[in-house]
């Protein structure tokens, strides 16, 4: 098939992607140059990529307000970032992200985003994270509205098949639009803000082997890393760990793709988690949940069959968001184990051993709102907080699988969000923002709400840089 070359004049900036980073980049670029095109792969009804499933953004603020009561200093966010996984992968770019985060909420508000108080049941997020009214799809809708009002052009159902490059410049994009076939779009500058490759199971299998078959993907199936692969083929330098991803524990019954927030399980700190042999394998009460929820996808990915089971009792059943498919329920622990397909004796023994290791004062000192120090004694692995006996029937359990939110491995960028090459140079007019370059900031761990921060900070940088590059090229 021959590519139809668009007869149109070249666009100043073409943004690949349709989520938060892409929209922020496109809006920022449109404030500087007139002809901006956004290429969204999904149809209009499903636009917004992973952003549809987000709900808050983690930013530095020097003073509290109605939505984020209390101060969250640059130093504290930096410390929080250093404490997850192996810490920031590029200290320079991570520090830039943290510094720039302070101006993100006012920028969002100025571009149509409304706020709401922290959602009920989201413990420990209220001071550090701002929740936007209606969640991620409402945010996406607001940004599209702002973008269209500003006069930028949006094309849905657009898949970027390839990137054409001459020397160190991108000259155009090969785009397919369903029955309309392939066409070549020429651009003075390009922003790649089209997410990771988490929906590409073949790609994941390269690093995870057959375990990848048991991964569920929390966002849309369109995040297959096609543009990332094209960039690598053109010599773009990789950034981030191959196995780096943000993954959480989700209901094993969730759909393969796009189950989003409703399938996530927050029962872990109030429960014990056993593997398919009925044995515990990790400290469920290590840290406050927003700082630790993101290790559980990885934890479960490391267990046999990539499956694990959260088991709790009636005393704590109301303390976390109710799971969408509902837990199994039984009058005794053995009944829960049987319903989950586990060996009843093994699970009963594990629960009994755990209960013996729980401090006698635990039920009276138990406090889900903070690290309460109710720890097990002499148990391996320990449960460091919120360890109270599992002894109040009925008992509950749920099977969990790793739910991947996004992969970190992407392209290396400069401070201007310019995509670097393996030869040490950089593309003059190709930029990246959001998950596709998150590996510059994140290594293996994740901090709740920081994906939106990365997308917004780097969307602004990439949009402004692309507009400047378009000016030079014109």
């Amino acid at each position, binding site marked *: 098939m021959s590519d139809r070359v668009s007869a149109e004049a070249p666009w100043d900036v073409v943004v690949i992607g349709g989520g938060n980073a892409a929209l922020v980049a496109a809006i920022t670029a449109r404030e500087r140059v007139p002809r901006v095109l956004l290429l969204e792969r999904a149809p209009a009804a499903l636009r917004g990529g992973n952003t549809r499933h987000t709900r808050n953004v983690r930013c530095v603020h020097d003073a509290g307000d109605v939505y984020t009561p209390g101060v969250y200093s640059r130093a504290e966010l930096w410390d929080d970032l250093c404490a997850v996984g192996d810490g920031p992968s590029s200290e320079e770019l991570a520090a830039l992200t943290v510094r720039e985060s302070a101006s993100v909420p006012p920028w969002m508000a100025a571009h149509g985003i*409304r706020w709401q108080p922290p959602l009920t049941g989201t413990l420990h997020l209220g001071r550090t994270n701002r929740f936007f*009214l209606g969640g991620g799809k409402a945010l996406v809708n607001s940004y599209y509205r702002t973008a269209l009002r500003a006069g930028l052009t949006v094309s849905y159902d657009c898949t970027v098949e390839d990137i054409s490059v001459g020397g160190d410049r991108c000259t155009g994009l090969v785009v397919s639009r369903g029955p309309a076939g392939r066409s070549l779009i020429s651009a003075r500058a390009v922003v790649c803000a089209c997410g990771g490759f988490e929906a590409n199971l073949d790609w994941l299998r390269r690093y995870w082997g057959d375990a990848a078959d048991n991964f569920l993907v929390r966002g849309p199936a369109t995040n297959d890393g096609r543009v990332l692969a094209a960039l690598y083929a053109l010599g773009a330098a990789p950034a981030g760990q191959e196995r780096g991803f943000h993954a959480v524990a989700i209901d094993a019954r969730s759909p393969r793709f*796009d189950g989003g927030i409703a399938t996530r399980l927050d029962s872990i700190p109030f429960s014990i988690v056993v593997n398919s042999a009925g044995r515990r394998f990790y400290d469920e009460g290590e840290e406050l949940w927003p700082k630790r929820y993101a290790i559980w996808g990885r934890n479960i990915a490391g267990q046999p069959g990539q499956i694990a089971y959260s088991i709790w009792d009636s005393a704590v059943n109301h303390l976390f968001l109710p799971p969408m498919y509902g837990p199994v329920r039984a009058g005794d622990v053995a009944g829960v184990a049987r319903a989950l397909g586990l060996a009843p004796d093994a699970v009963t023994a594990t629960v009994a051993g755990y209960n013996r290791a729980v401090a006698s004062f635990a039920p009276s000192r138990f406090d889900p709102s903070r690290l309460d120090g109710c720890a097990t004694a002499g148990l391996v692995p320990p449960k460091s907080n919120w360890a109270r006996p599992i002894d109040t029937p009925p008992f509950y359990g749920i099977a969990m699988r790793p739910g991947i939110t996004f992969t970190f491995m992407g392209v290396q960028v400069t401070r201007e969000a310019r995509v670097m090459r393996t030869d040490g140079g950089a593309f003059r007019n190709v930029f990246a923002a959001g998950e596709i370059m998150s590996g510059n900031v994140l290594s293996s761990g994740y901090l709740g709400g920081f994906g939106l921060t990365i997308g917004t900070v780097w969307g602004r940088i990439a949009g402004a840089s692309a507009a400047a590059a378009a000016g030079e090229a014109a």
Partner: protein
Amino acid sequence: MTEGLPFDGLFVEVSRQLTICNACRYCEGYCAVFPALERLAEITPGDATHLADLCHDCRDCYTACMYAPPHEFAVNVPAALSAVRRHTYDEYLPRPPWPPWAAGAAGAAGAAGAAGAAGAAGAARRRGAMLAAGLAAVCVLALAGFLAGGTGTAAAGSPYRVIAYPALLVAVGLPALWSIVVMTGAAVRYWRATGGRGLTSPRALLSALRQAAGLRNLRGGGADCAYPTDEPSAARRRLHGLVAWGLAACVGSTVAAAISQDIAGDAPPYPLLSAPVLLGVIGGAGMVLGCGGLLVLRRAAAGAVAPGDPPREDLALARRGYALLTGLLLLAVTGLLTLMLRDTTAFGPVLVIHLAAVVACFAIAPYTKFTHVVYRFLALVHDSAESADGNHRSRA
């Protein structure tokens, strides 16, 4: 899809959707429905009914929902809850004194034995009752007019030239009383089924009144309504306010006229710059603008749903929405015309038309979507009582 389901099936579907909502909670900031949902340990049919009437149909939760169709979870809360509301409007009316076959005569007898019998029978009963009540009311008016026609001694432009005061009182009062009795019965049944609380709490009542007066649940937490299109707009809240306050002003006009006549001893017609006329003109104009505007929005909303897109509401209830707005518009227009034409020969016929409209509307009100006023207010009272408790608990 929720269209046409009997309540059992509908309840299963609504529970499925609300369980997803409760696991997500992103819409918590839009209205009272989602915080109320989060306070429930599990959802009963009564709870679903309460939540449905608490919903003011702003549709923000639909446009914000990443699980809305074409997503496989197919969450469409405005449509699901409006289908529950339709069942509420049908099923909570007190059983009529006539046998079911009489109601079936109104047009849906065949449906009674078919699938979905409960819902269809309820709707048939409602239609039968509406027809019977409307006919009876107009007969009462005709009889009253015949037995006690107007007197030539009343002033020009006075209604009493057409119909004597006691006859008017009976013709309007009887159907009004009937409506109040039927709606009270419905309210009692609804209150029991939803486990209502707070009617004796001044705080809950005040809070409900405040929310109703300002249509707080159509504010979308500052985002206004996604109505008539998916774009935020305050049009619906403003127009609905015009209708509600316009109707209140018309009631005020009637009360003012009664005071002028029976206390001040001042017989109609009243001058332009009197309380009855001013309130009537302002209220009537508000209702005309409001109802007309809402009818236009309704058409726009129906047209805004792209082919293949699911409707955001129960279509049968939408038809009742058109009917209510048209009825209220007719009331307001004929009312304004009687005033404008009171010095002409057309006054008599126009007044008869207006009175017939008033009498019929009073009689059939409990069988129309007018009852949403009752159920929504009760839902707001219940919610105010519950949320006051909830806030208290979370502070503790």
